[in-house]
């Protein structure tokens, strides 16, 4: 299950939805907002998403993970909007019978989410400038 949200992500609550008597392992990943990037002090991050395709592509990634690794449940939630330092931007949770596939599926999902979902982030710096992450012109920090 892939979800896009604008409200704060509640990992504990999301984790509870994966509890399963057949599961002997749970692996979770939380992506947090960090206060520094490439030498610049970051104040906050602004996420923009194209939700219809982010959901579609996210479901595809989860289906790929499930096809590769025998897991019981795999969920991913990504947040958009303005996020402050320390907030959770993305959460992945996987439950499986054994730990290996939980770790591997979790890793696969977050790695693919980062490169495939139509989501962009704009860093707002303490010096008042801002820049889109991963864009050529971000280097200019205009």
């Amino acid at each position, binding site marked *: 299950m892939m979800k896009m949200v604008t409200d704060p992500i509640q990992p504990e609550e999301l984790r509870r939805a994966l509890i399963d008597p057949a599961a002997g392992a749970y692996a979770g990943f939380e*992506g947090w907002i960090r206060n520094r990037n490439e030498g610049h002090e970051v104040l906050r991050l602004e*996420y*923009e*998403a*194209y939700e*219809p*395709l*982010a959901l*579609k*592509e996210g479901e595809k990634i989860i289906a790929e993970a499930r096809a590769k690794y025998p897991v019981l449940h795999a969920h991913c939630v*990504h947040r958009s909007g303005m996020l402050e330092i320390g907030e959770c*931007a*993305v959460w992945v949770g996987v439950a499986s019978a054994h730990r290996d596939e939980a770790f591997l599926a979790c890793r696969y999902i*977050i790695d693919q*989410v*980062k*490169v*495939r*979902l*139509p*989501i*962009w*982030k*704009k860093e707002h710096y303490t010096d008042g400038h801002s820049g*889109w*992450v*991963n*864009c*050529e*012109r971000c280097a200019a920090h205009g």
Partner: protein
Amino acid sequence: MSKTIEVRYFALFRENAGVDRESVTSDAATASELFAELRDRHGSTEPLGHCKVAINDEMVGWDAPIQDGDSILLFPPVAGG
């Protein structure tokens, strides 16, 4: 043959274009031709290889053909997570 399409811009591309969508009349046969045409017009410098395109809400390759009436979504380099 000239066709009329709707183009939507996101993130950096929206800021470069100054609008989030526009109707475009173009002779471009493929998504990559359209990208080159609009990049010149809006002064973007992103290499095509880092960007993605969707036509009518389906992710496609840059060699995908463009038909009259299509809705084209131009995505600058993504940065989820």
